[in-house]
């Protein structure tokens, strides 16, 4: 075959590959813009603080709560069972295993909604699935879970369940965040042991 034809075929082949490659394979969004827009416009990407409190109380293993604040803020207080991935460190490859889990719901929170929204949009744009936002962040957590009170005279069963959930979450949050770091990891095993005794089961 003529060398000129060979080179032409080779160049066309390379051109086709280049034409269909993402602009920057490692660091550009993979999801189509209209799809990302419609997903982000949905209210389904949010969990309320009451829903997250219930997940925390039940030690829901299908959920991973992710705290996007700085390490200093995380150490001061955090939602029990959450992991700390500071927002500036979001693209660090060490978190790949945490983000790339389709069966685990990842719920992001910051002090308010802004950092969690940035993170949700970035990770969803990069193609990671099952991402959610704790609506209102830690400010809403404090307001609703830690400081809300029932002010009525007669409490309905629904309200009773709601406030019991909040009370349990408040208790766990306050207890675990008051412990020294060395004891925090033992907290949940201690709680499970106590629960199994109450249930009449064995460890």
């Amino acid at each position, binding site marked *: 075959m003529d060398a000129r034809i060979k080179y032409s075929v080779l160049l*066309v082949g390379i*051109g*086709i590959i*280049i*034409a*269909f490659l993402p*602009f*920057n394979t490692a*660091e*550009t*969004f993979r999801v189509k*813009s*209209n799809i*990302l*827009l*419609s997903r*982000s*416009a949905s209210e389904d990407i949010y969990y309320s603080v009451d829903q997250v409190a219930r997940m925390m109380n039940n030690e829901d293993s299908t959920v991973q709560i992710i705290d996007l*604040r700085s390490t200093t*803020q995380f150490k*001061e*207080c955090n939602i029990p069972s959450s992991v700390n991935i500071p*927002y*500036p460190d*979001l*693209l660090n490859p060490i978190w790949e295993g945490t983000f790339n889990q389709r069966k685990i719901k990842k719920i992001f929170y*910051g*002090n*308010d*909604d*802004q*950092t969690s*929204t*940035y993170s*949700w*949009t*970035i990770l969803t*744009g*990069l193609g990671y699935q099952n991402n959610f*936002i704790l609506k209102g*962040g*830690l*400010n809403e957590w*404090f*307001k609703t879970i*830690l*400081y809300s009170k029932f002010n009525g005279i007669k409490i309905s069963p629904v309200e009773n369940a709601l406030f019991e959930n909040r009370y349990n979450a408040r208790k766990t949050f*306050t*207890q675990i*965040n*008051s*412990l020294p770091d060395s*004891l925090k990891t*033992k*907290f949940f*095993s*201690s*709680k499970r*042991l*106590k629960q199994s005794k109450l249930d009449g089961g064995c460890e």
Partner: protein
Amino acid sequence: MALLILVIIRISDKNIFREPVRKAIEATQSNGNLITPDQLKLLSGSYLVIDLRRIAANDSIQFQHRKQIPFEKILDRDNRDVLDQTKGDLILFSDDAATASKAWVILNQLGYKNLLILTSNANPEELKYKFQPDTTARLEQDSI
């Protein structure tokens, strides 16, 4: 020839994300993409405030150059034309921080420059509460 057409179509496709994600993180982590109403009043260059709400409300702040584009329609062709033709800053505004933040990331990654979010709070991620530790907290004795 067909290859050339494919490459041209791809390069001119406005819906392809082409900006490095890291740039979005760098621009947002120091709140450098936020502008307060007071700063907006002092803005000397040209700008367009994009009102992302579905229904415009009677605001206390009056914007000189405002265009209402609901968030869900921000990528419609006509609206993209408005964004493309704007010279100066594109200032995103919504009732809540989340909507403008989503729009900011999407438009930033599509290659729009000079994007700002209008917010009344210069530090929206401030924790408004102080955690009060319970000094009597301890683990159950039998687990230690």
